[in-house]
């Protein structure tokens, strides 16, 4: 009798270490995410540690995001202006830049910077805590390290990234206003009337919602890589690196999904 499945799937997977390694990592990450929700919903809640982490997460990347956002708005305006000028459409500049920044560039660039600055920090910190037995020390004290270390950091990144994105959008729009004034004089009132005149609910709301998912993805992947780091200083370096690489990758994946979902309703 002819076999419907000629090759044993499991054996075949084991022959491809990269593929079996990928599925292994995905299954472990899934269990990690499920544990996060279980621990996050179960009292006691670590509110003081959450407040401390939220402050640190926001504070750590505040200046970097402000500078990047300003340059982002400025450069986008300077680069777009000649093209619009060719069609005599420079009056569209504020609204075009506003829609680009609020819908896509602001959230994605801020999230990628956040993954680099905060994600790597969390990955390295947790890996270092594991290597120096600090996580074991919490466990033997009868304190749940997952709840104290992982849950607080993931919630902090989830809550703080939208705040940072809103801040980055505002700074980028100011950078754009500054850029628009390099070639001609545009009043503050006129520029921002154009900006807010063109932005509507369908631009702002989906972009705002997806930043929570960006923050969650960066937080969970950073904690996962740190919490499961190998021993030694090499493990710390690898965890920090993996947090940035996979955090940034997840941001683009989540963005792609978010755009597809948004397009269904618009």
């Amino acid at each position: 009798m002819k076999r419907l499945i000629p090759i044993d799937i499991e054996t075949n997977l084991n022959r491809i270490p990269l593929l079996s390694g990928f599925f292994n990592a995905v299954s472990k990450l899934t269990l990690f995410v499920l544990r996060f929700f279980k621990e996050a919903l179960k009292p006691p809640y670590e509110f003081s540690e959450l407040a401390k982490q939220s402050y640190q997460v926001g504070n750590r990347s505040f200046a970097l995001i402000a500078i990047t956002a300003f340059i982002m708005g400025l450069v986008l305006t300077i680069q777009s202006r000649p093209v619009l000028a060719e069609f005599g459409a420079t009056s569209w500049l504020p609204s075009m830049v506003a829609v680009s920044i609020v819908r896509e560039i602001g959230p994605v660039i801020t999230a990628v910077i956040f993954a680099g600055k905060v994600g790597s920090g969390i990955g390295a910190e947790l890996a270092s805590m594991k290597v120096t037995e600090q996580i074991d020390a919490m466990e033997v004290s009868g304190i749940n390290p997952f709840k104290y270390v992982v849950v607080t950091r993931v919630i902090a990144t989830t809550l703080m990234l939208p705040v940072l994105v809103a801040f980055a959008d505002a700074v980028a729009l100011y950078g754009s206003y500054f850029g628009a004034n390099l070639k001609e004089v545009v009043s503050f009132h006129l520029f921002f009337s154009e900006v807010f005149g063109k932005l509507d609910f369908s631009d702002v709301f989906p972009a705002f919602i997806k930043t929570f998912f960006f923050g969650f993805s960066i937080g969970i992947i950073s904690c996962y890589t740190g919490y499961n780091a190998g021993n030694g200083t090499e493990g710390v370096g690898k965890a920090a690196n993996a947090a940035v690489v996979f955090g940034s990758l997840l941001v683009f994946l989540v963005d792609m999904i978010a755009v597809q979902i948004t397009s269904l309703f618009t």
Partner: protein
Amino acid sequence: MEDIVVKIEHLKKSFGNNHVLADINLQVKKGENLAILGKSGTGKSVLIKCLVGLLNADEGEISIFGKSLADIDENGLNEVRKKIGFVFQSAALYDSLSVRENLEFPLRAQPAKPQHEVDALVEEVLQNVDLKDAIDKMPSELSGGMRKRIGLARSLILRPDIMLYDEPTTGLDPITSKEISKLILDMQHKYKTTSVIITHDIECAHITANRLAIIDKGLCVAEGTFDEMIKSEDKFVKAFFK
């Protein structure tokens, strides 16, 4: 039977093909200080981590105060852990917290205490380890010996019945090692704790322990007092105490 605090029966633990603990049988009586000696990589730290449930045994049984670790759930294990103080090899101080916060941290697992009681406890344990001035320092500002002392103070703050020390003198100079060993003994006398000390420092074992056990190739090859070990005719024991 009642005065046996820790009981280890036929304990086995492997990591892949590496059989670290082959068949360990040990008992620790109340108020006793047991030093477990052995060469590096013989599974001493694995054994002590099994005692607090940081690692699960593959086979065999560990009982603490008559409760088998295999029969209790996570909450039960946490209750047992509250009776145990663990001093890690690296002291395992929380880098982001000051000495005061490090000492207060284990109290989170207990019902909330008024701040003046917490302050009194912190002051007492710091006084015990003679480091009252270090209260507002960060771990990065402490020397190796000071870190070990603070690690010991943090373990004592919950007034445990059992103290587990993982290589308490590793990485310290001979003078500081001796100070730490004497401190372990002082704390045992003051708080009437039962202690298990993992070490390969013969002097530390001599100062602190009432009884010694030697582990080799995953088995407990010798047990007895320090004097008995010195007089032993066993080749391995003789080589160890030379």
